[in-house]
């Protein structure tokens, strides 16, 4: 188990990168503490897999250093890094039993049979797979197979970190839930650092203590799920974290004051550079809907109601034609065409200047 430090770490697949655009991973500084859970989150092609491959040693970075417990492992081959990896699709030995699958990594390392037996039993208990030890691995369901893939990493006592590369892709939604719970329990009980790569923001939010959001090879923001949700540093994070994405409402400057006819927000908005783009970012979860005659900061007409189960998403058209989405549990009582009052707390409306969160709030 180890603390992992990325020191000015970057990678270009070109031999002679000219500018930033030539980097699949633009140089980044990050510290991952021992025993915590992390998620690398971003769309396809954002550089998250390059970062993962650098950590596991499959790719040697063109720039910077990688440290495990302050030891430079930048050039250390994969086998010597003691990284366990779980992939998108379960990798199991289908002709072997569950017991044999779990024992295999230890047999390869020449561990004493009596020790192997004890370790396999421990890990099987941790995974709730005791009952299945003598079953052929191919008979198990997809989520159980993924647990075995993970278990083959866990049996080793020298593992620095567990890398999970979109491991829940082939798992049904309901089972994802149970598997995520299991992963967290394993993290808590073993204290192993876990790094999850995913494009799924809800998966990242529910799994990780800290999330690294990436786009176009560039780190966008790194923080706890709560920080990313309540204070997205830029419009991309506001869009990528949360579903539906953050509402972005364009502001106009009139007589030196920022505002919009769509919503009467009387907060003191600092004007940034004249001529730059100013927007208010408001989470759909922070838009509350009230009767049209109740106190409100703007009126909206319901264009669409989406029933998503416990909650729903209501799209409203504000006075200026601007659309705003609200997430609510009261959607069942509403109907399309109805006019409602909109309220947003001052602290929940964030000012973005040219797509970046304005600091002076």
């Amino acid at each position, binding site marked *: 188990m180890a603390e992992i430090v990325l020191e000015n770490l970057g990678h270009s697949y070109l031999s002679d990168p000219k500018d930033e655009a030539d980097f699949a991973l633009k140089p980044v500084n990050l510290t991952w503490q021992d025993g915590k859970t992390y998620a690398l989150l971003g769309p396809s092609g954002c550089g998250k897999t390059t970062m993962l491959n650098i950590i596991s040693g499959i790719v040697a970075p063109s720039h910077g250093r990688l440290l495990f417990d302050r030891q430079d492992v930048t050039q250390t081959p994969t086998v010597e890094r003691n990284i366990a990896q779980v992939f998108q699709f379960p990798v199991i030995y289908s002709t072997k039993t569950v017991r044999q699958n779990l024992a295999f990594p230890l047999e390869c390392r020449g561990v004493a049979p009596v020790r192997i037996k004890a370790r396999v039993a421990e890990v099987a208990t941790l995974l709730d797979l005791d009952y299945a030890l003598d079953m052929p691995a191919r008979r198990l369901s997809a989520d159980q197979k993924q647990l075995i893939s993970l278990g083959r990493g866990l049996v080793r006592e020298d593992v620095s970190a567990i890398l999970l590369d979109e491991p829940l892709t082939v798992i049904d*939604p309901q089972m994802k839930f149970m598997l995520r719970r299991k992963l967290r329990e394993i993290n*808590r009980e073993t204290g192993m650092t876990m790094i999850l790569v995913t494009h799924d923001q809800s998966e990242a939010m529910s799994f990780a203590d800290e999330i690294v959001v990436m786009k176009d090879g560039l780190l966008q923001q790194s923080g706890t799920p*709560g920080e990313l949700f309540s204070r997205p540093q830029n419009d991309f994070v506001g869009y990528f*974290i949360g579903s539906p994405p953050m509402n972005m409402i364009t502001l106009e400057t009139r007589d030196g004051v920022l505002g919009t006819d769509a919503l009467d927000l009387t907060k003191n908005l600092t004007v940034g550079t004249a001529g730059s783009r100013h927007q208010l970012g408001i989470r759909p979860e922070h838009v509350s809907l009230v009767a049209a005659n109740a106190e409100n900061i703007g009126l909206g007409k319901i264009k669409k109601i989406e029933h998503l189960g416990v909650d729903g998403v209501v799209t409203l058209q504000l006075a200026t034609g601007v659309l705003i989405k609200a*997430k609510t549990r009261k959607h069942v009582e509403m109907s399309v065409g109805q006019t409602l009052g909109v309220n947003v707390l001052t602290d929940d409306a964030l000012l973005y200047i040219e797509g970046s969160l304005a600091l002076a709030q």
Partner: protein
Amino acid sequence: MLQIDQLTTADPKVSLQDISFQFDAGNIYTILGRTGAGKTELLRALMGLNSLVKGDIQLDGQSIAKRPVKDRSMSLVYQQFINYPHLSVLDNVAFPLRRQGKKKSEAQLLAAKMLTTIGLGDFLQRRPAQLSGGQQQRVALARAMVKKSRILMLDEPLANLDYKLREQLREEFPRLVAGNDDSVILYTTTEPREAMELGNTMIVMTDGRIVASGPPADLFAHPPTKDAASVISDPPISFIAGFVRSGALYFGEDQLAPNNGLHLPPDGPVTIALRPDAIELGGAFNATIGLSEFSGSETIVHLDFDFGRAIMLVEGIETFEAGTHISVSIQAEHIMLFALDGQNITTRTK
């Protein structure tokens, strides 16, 4: 209009068991089920790709069960983005029209129109490999739609796309398929939210059978069986073994459960279902926190009660330390009762 009667197959993985249903033109039917529920098998049986042991398929009152695949007026979009790699985007979409015997110029004109509708008007001359995953899947969708088939089937079309792209295509979907008033659209998915968002009618399948169908909001509120409730619920609904005795409801054998507004069945065992919004912070029930996770602006808390495990949904992002104890209340209006055979026996008094 498409009607299926007692459709039964003998497929190697999942067989369809006596499925009857009537699909109306102009409607979008989402077919929700877990992997292995028989969703793909149903589409393949309709297409004629899997053979029937029993049953009939009728299109506008005429049996098509013995017709070859190409004469059934059906199109299927797969989970994988299947396009012709050597053809331009335009020719990919024009291809089925050419096969129908249309002239090249006419086929290309119709294809260009369809691609423009679907937001790919600027990419006509590109090859599929030069497009993003979401764009490639739109090409496949355009090729399926351009034929104006009576039945348009989409088999987990968004499953291979990134989360955000899925969100965007879900949002666009009604517009993408608008104007298909003569067609029946069938859309399979494993995601309850997707099924609820996109379907006018939602069909729930388990084990090769249709176990529930209806408008999504109604099905969510009144799932006919425990299985259906479980498939529809995301985050999961929790089931607790319970008991009815002398006009009172109990979790387990002896922990009194709220029952205001509920008609209780006769004395005996029942399954009590708790939706994630049935449990609220503060109240008379004690639980240990197993785990808490964030989902957007909500916190999903896994609770261990002495009568079983359940999931609570808390609005806002709050940290709950695993292993600590909290007290909660349980809202009777969000409780459902199921008989031991799985039938929903919830009736309310108001």
